[in-house]
């Protein structure tokens, strides 16, 4: 049933984000879900992956969050760095689903081992600076997500294991981390400062060496001589890998910009989440990234077209009578209608500023998503235009 409060007026004005069309297009090989924390990004990724698999795609879903409940809802005991088959899905259409969770350090270790000699690899893996970098550097997670995505894509292309990769991005500190981190890390490892650190007397920088030794002394004071020593050892051992890192980051970036990839921005109809979503949309547009549209989770709806004012007035009439449940039901309905009004206003503002961004809405669910059936329901709601 349609009424003036459920956002249907908005839906007709805003282009519809057709998830089924995206997953039905065999040229779509990568779907990236991004958005701020707490908006249901991981659930959306899993729901899209399940729906695509049951529509005949051979899917692998890469999650970043250590959400044990997601593993449970997919019926996979534990998610780790290796894709595990999700056996409970319906394979009648020839699709399949594997699920995995990014192990940041494990992925970094694999890269080191795969691209250097055993002796060099051993030296790198033991280096204190490497240990800190691979397990704690704030951009490593994003960088390794990119690296893993590149690996999955190569494997998919080479062996035909998968024809669709769904990626759940890290809970970014800011909306821009995901796109910036790979560049940031390679700039860091390949940057002027490191080159200065390694060869302070070479190249056009040598004239700066007096100033540099002052800086170097300051850095040593702050960081301690030992860590700078570790960094130098690490960089020497790692130097040969830099080119490869850069190259792969660049080709993954190109892959993400290609027509085989598409971005879904996930949000909820709240001020904060929509603000972050706006950053994401603008940034992706600026970078020329293929944005399909926005998934709005937890949108409230009501099938009862009674305004909050009228509901409260009816509730007031019942005060002092035995109709306690009725009065409370009306008050709750009034609050729900107010929530819907607020959400609609937020969504309208977003749509007015960015009218070209397609949207799909998933209504607020009464219970948590804890099993495959619930993920299927979310998938159906995602694809439902009404």
């Amino acid at each position, binding site marked *: 049933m349609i009424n003036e409060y459920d956002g249907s007026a908005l839906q007709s004005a805003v282009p519809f984000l057709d998830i089924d069309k995206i997953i039905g297009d065999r040229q779509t090989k990568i779907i990236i879900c991004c958005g701020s924390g*707490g908006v249901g990004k991981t659930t959306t990724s899993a729901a899209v992956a399940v729906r695509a698999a049951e529509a005949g795609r051979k899917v692998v879903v890469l999650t970043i969050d250590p959400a044990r409940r997601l593993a449970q809802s997919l019926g996979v005991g534990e998610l780790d760095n290796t894709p595990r088959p999700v056996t409970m899905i319906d394979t009648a259409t020839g699709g399949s689903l594997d699920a995995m969770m990014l192990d940041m350090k494990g992925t970094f270790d694999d890269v080191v081992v795969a691209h250097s000699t055993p002796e060099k690899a051993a030296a790198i893996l033991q280096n204190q600076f490497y240990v800190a970098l691979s397990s704690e550097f704030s951009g490593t997670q994003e960088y390794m997500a990119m690296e893993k995505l590149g690996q999955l894509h190569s494997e998919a292309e080479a062996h035909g294991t998968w024809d669709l990769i769904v990626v759940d991005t890290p809970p970014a500190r800011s909306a821009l981390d995901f796109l910036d981190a790979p560049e940031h890390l390679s700039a860091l490892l390949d940057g002027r400062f490191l080159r200065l650190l390694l060869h302070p007397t070479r190249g056009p920088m040598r004239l700066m060496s007096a100033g540099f030794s002052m800086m170097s002394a*300051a850095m040593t*004071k702050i*960081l301690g001589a030992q860590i700078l020593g570790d960094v130098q050892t690490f960089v020497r051992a790692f130097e040969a890998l830099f080119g490869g890192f850069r190259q792969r980051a660049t080709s993954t970036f190109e892959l993400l910009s290609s027509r085989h990839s598409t971005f879904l921005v996930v949000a909820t109809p709240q001020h*904060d989440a929509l603000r972050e979503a706006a950053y994401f949309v603008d940034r992706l547009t600026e970078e020329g990234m293929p944005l399909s549209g926005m998934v709005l989770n937890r949108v409230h709806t009501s099938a009862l077209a009674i305004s909050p004012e009228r509901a409260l007035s009816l509730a007031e009439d019942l005060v002092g009578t035995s109709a306690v449940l*009725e009065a409370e039901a*009306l008050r709750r*309905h009034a609050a729900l209608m107010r929530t819907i009004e607020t959400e609609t206003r937020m969504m309208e503002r977003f749509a007015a500023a960015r009218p070209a961004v397609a949207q799909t809405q998933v209504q607020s669910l009464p219970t948590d998503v804890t099993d495959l059936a619930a993920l299927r329901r979310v998938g159906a709601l995602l694809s439902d235009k009404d």
Partner: protein
Amino acid sequence: MSPRHTLHIVSGKGGTGKTTIAAGLACALATSGRRVLLCEVEGRNGISELFGVPPLTGAGERRINRTSAGGMVYGLSVDAEDALIEYLDTFYHLSIAGKALDRFGAVDFATSIAPGLRDVLLTGKVYEAVRRKIKSRPNPYDAVVLDAPPTGRIARFLNVHAAVAGLAKVGPIRSQADSIMRLLRSSTTAVHFVSLLEDMPVTETEEAIAALRPTQIRIGTVIENMVTLTPLDHDQLQTAAAGSVALQVPGLTIKQNQALASEFAIEAARTLQEQQRHDRLTALGLPLAQITFDPGGIDEGAILVIAEQLRDQMSLEAA
């Protein structure tokens, strides 16, 4: 006497409204004549957005609100790179070198290769602001509220000892970390957690509290946000949730009454689930506060309503 906290650290899972609660708490603490500093460390401009003021940039502290009680709330957005340059200046009189370092990407380098250093710099700036309560220093604050990183990162963020352990055994950074840790462990500091009455935020709150216990940092209040209160008892809620009651609101059609009943069944079921999550948070054995859900959304007025609720329920030094 109520416990006296001068540093309030607010954490919570993404989406629980921790920035809003931190802002409300700052306003609650800013009673007559008091000056309260509200800090953020994640460069999101969350504070300036909330109060509708221009973004807080650089190392400056700006007045963002004068409360009706006659107190002042100031805002500060702490940036690690600014903090490092300030640190170099304070301890080594190296502000020019600091700027040169910045130009070479060295400041970015230092704060990135040693993530622990980043946290020490961020908490160090907050430490400096708290220490200013000593009246001889400029700009003293009566209380400082920190909008801290989310639950998933809070224990690591606050455990500055561990952060610098591999970094510096001696030297200024080490003694800086020691001083920060002493402040964090003192009785004038408390970490508050914001949670919704949903499964994941409650689980993350439980996990963050368990992770924080070994650090000996005091945990203050668990704040349940966006709570819907109900006058109904458990039996009434269960009856409503079962969907078996026929509601009879005079003036509504049979169809409308049915639609109302099925909507109410879902609402009642949700409330029952929320009560279970409330029981889980109660089991933590910590003081609880409840902030009611505001269907009108969050604006400056809503923050003041939150401030009032916090003042009524938390034992604040300003109360």
